[in-house]
Each structure stands twice: as C-alpha cells, then as structure tokens.
C-alpha cells in the first residue's frame, strides 16, 4: 500500500527565551485506511506533530507530502482549503463553538467548503442522527456532556468527508466507558478508508491502533500495535 502522508526530515524549533527543538529530523510514511496512535510524554511533540500535519503550523525544516504532492507552507489560503476538505481535527476538549448549537457547529464546518446552507444543514442533521444526538441538535455545547460534545466534534471532523482525521487526546478528559464509545466512533472511520492519527496517553487505546508510534527525542519509533 502506498503511503498517503509522507513526513521527511521534519524538524520543529520553538524560539522562546531558549531555543527548544521539539521534533528532530522526523521521517515517517502514513498509509491510508490505517489507524495510528501517537504516544509520548508531555512535551514530546505529539500536538506539534499533529499541528504540522494539519497545516496549522509549519515545520522549521523538512517537507510534508499528501498523496505525493508537496505542501507549500507559504500558500496559506490553499492549505486552509485543503484542511477544510481533507483533514478533520478533534481536540481534547472545548473544541466546539460555545455560541452555536450542536447542529450549527456541524454545518459551519460544511459551509467552510462552500456548501450552501440547506445542503450543509441536511448533512449535519444526517450526521447527528448517525451519532444518536439528533434530539440534542438545538443544544449548546454547555448543555452537552463531555462525551456528547466529543461525538459532535468527531461528527464535525468527518462532515466534509476528509481523508485524514487527527485527534489530539480525544478521550483525555472522559471516563473510561465514554472514552471507549468515543474511540469506537473514531476507529469506525477506518472502514471509510481514512487515515486516522490520534495522540493519547492511554496505552489501552494506543494498542488498539494498527500502528503504535512513540515520540521520543523528537523522533518516531514505530511498532505494530
């Protein structure tokens, strides 16, 4: 199987008072239709790596290729459009817009790729039905539980049919039962031939991925989970 996402010699430095090198000439090829778990201690660069893959951040050195096409980090507009169409992101918590209902949070993501409102709403309603939250469509994030919010966040991440789903500790703030449900929902996306990369501190979930990646000293060590 060909690699879909190719990271080559990726380095990332943060220039605060001291220069901090978080990623150091990291190279790895990710295959589509597979689930990758990303482990490592706090500060090891998991979120940084996800931010680079999602094109929210740019590497200090190195290159990223999606489907053999190299990313031009100077073309922000193109990268934003690419992210809207091809990448779905789920954060640990508070990743829904608090002033919008569950339904609005979903269809806003769809509107970002120029869908008209009617189509976006239909897509959002269909997804809410699928995740069992249609009765909560008019509820604001503050009226949803942590698990429900996370399900809405996952639905938002997949509303535009992305090839890649990136999740930064998606189950980090949830109890075990809810975390298992969320993980199952996320893992289910594999069937749709999507590449899923999630950062976690939880070895139980990490081992359920196809590949377990350990981030140490700015580099990746891969094992089959």
């Amino acid at each position, binding site marked *: 199987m060909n690699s879909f996402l190719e990271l080559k010699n990726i380095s990332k430095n943060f220039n605060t008072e001291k220069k901090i090198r978080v990623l150091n000439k990291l190279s790895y090829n990710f295959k589509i239709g597979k689930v990758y778990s990303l482990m490592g201690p706090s500060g090891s660069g998991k979120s940084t790596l996800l931010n680079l893959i999602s094109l*929210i*951040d740019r590497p200090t050195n190195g290159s990223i290729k999606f489907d053999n096409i190299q990313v031009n980090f100077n073309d922000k507009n193109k990268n*934003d459009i690419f992210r809207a169409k091809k990448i779905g992101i789920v954060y640990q918590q508070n990743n829904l*817009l*608090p002033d919008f209902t569950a339904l609005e949070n979903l269809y806003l993501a769809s509107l*970002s790729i120029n869908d008209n409102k009617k189509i976006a709403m239909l897509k959002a309603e269909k997804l809410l039905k699928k995740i069992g939250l249609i009765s909560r469509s008019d509820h604001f994030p503050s009226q949803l539980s942590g698990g429900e919010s996370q399900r809405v966040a996952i639905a*938002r991440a997949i509303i535009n049919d992305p090839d890649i789903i990136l999740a930064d500790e998606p189950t980090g703030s949830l109890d075990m039962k809810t975390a298992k449900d969320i993980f199952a929902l996320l893992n289910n996306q594999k069937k749709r031939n999507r590449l899923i990369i999630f950062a976690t501190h939880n070895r139980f979930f990490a081992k359920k991925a196809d590949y377990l990646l350990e981030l140490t000293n700015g580099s990746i060590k891969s094992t089959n989970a």
Partner: protein
Amino acid sequence: MIKDSIINIIVAAFNIISGLTILVKNKTKDIAILKSIGVLNKSIVKIFFLIGVIIGTSATAFGIMLGVIFSIYIENLREFLSSTFNISLFPEEIYFLSKMPSEINLTSIFLISICSIIITIIVSIFPAFKAAKLDPIQALKYE
C-alpha cells in the same frame, strides 16, 4: 454643530474599534477553532467586519431616531424635568427664550449618517484583520 458632530463621530469610531478589539480578544479561541476547521482568513475578516458595520449602522439609525425625537419634544422634556425636580431649567429671564430652540436639518442628518457609516466601515477593518492574523496554535494552547 458640525464641530460637535465630528467629535461625536470620532468618539463613536473609537468605541467601535475598542468594542471590536475586545470582541476579537474574547473570541480568540473561537477564531482558532474556525481556522482549525479550515475557515479562510478572508471569511474571518468578513465576520468581524460585518459585526462592525452592523453595530455602526444600527447605532447610527438608533442615534438619529433618538436625536430627532429629542429635538421634537425638547420643550416637553424641559417642562417635564422642571416640574419633576421642581427646578427652573433654562429660565426665560436669563436665557431670553420662551421655549427651547431646536431645528431638524435633513441635510445635516443625512451628512452625519453617511459620515458615521463610512467611518464605521473604515474602523471595522483594523480589528477584522487583527482577528484573521491570530495564530491558532497560540490561541488553542493558552486560552
């Protein structure tokens, strides 16, 4: 009168800038979320620009309405305040006015409205661009 209007418009413009800047600051995380789902910078500029224009236009309309009502009923208002607080507001023997003077000049109203809407549009641009320039990583990390 024109001088007063200019001062009022400048004050209003600063209010819009500071109001929108505070709004951008309060909505930093929301802007970061929008960026993370791929909303383009130009759309974020549009959102905050539109907020500024809506605030400015509605404030202009409301201000004109209030000003016209105030001008029409200025004498009634003076009488009401004088009787309520038992004071003599603008007494005739001092001001030589039998009633409060007021004039509604349609040209002035039109000019002031246009000026304030144009200034609102201009000053809304700065906070809107500030919103679009926000670094989503910093916002998500530190909010």
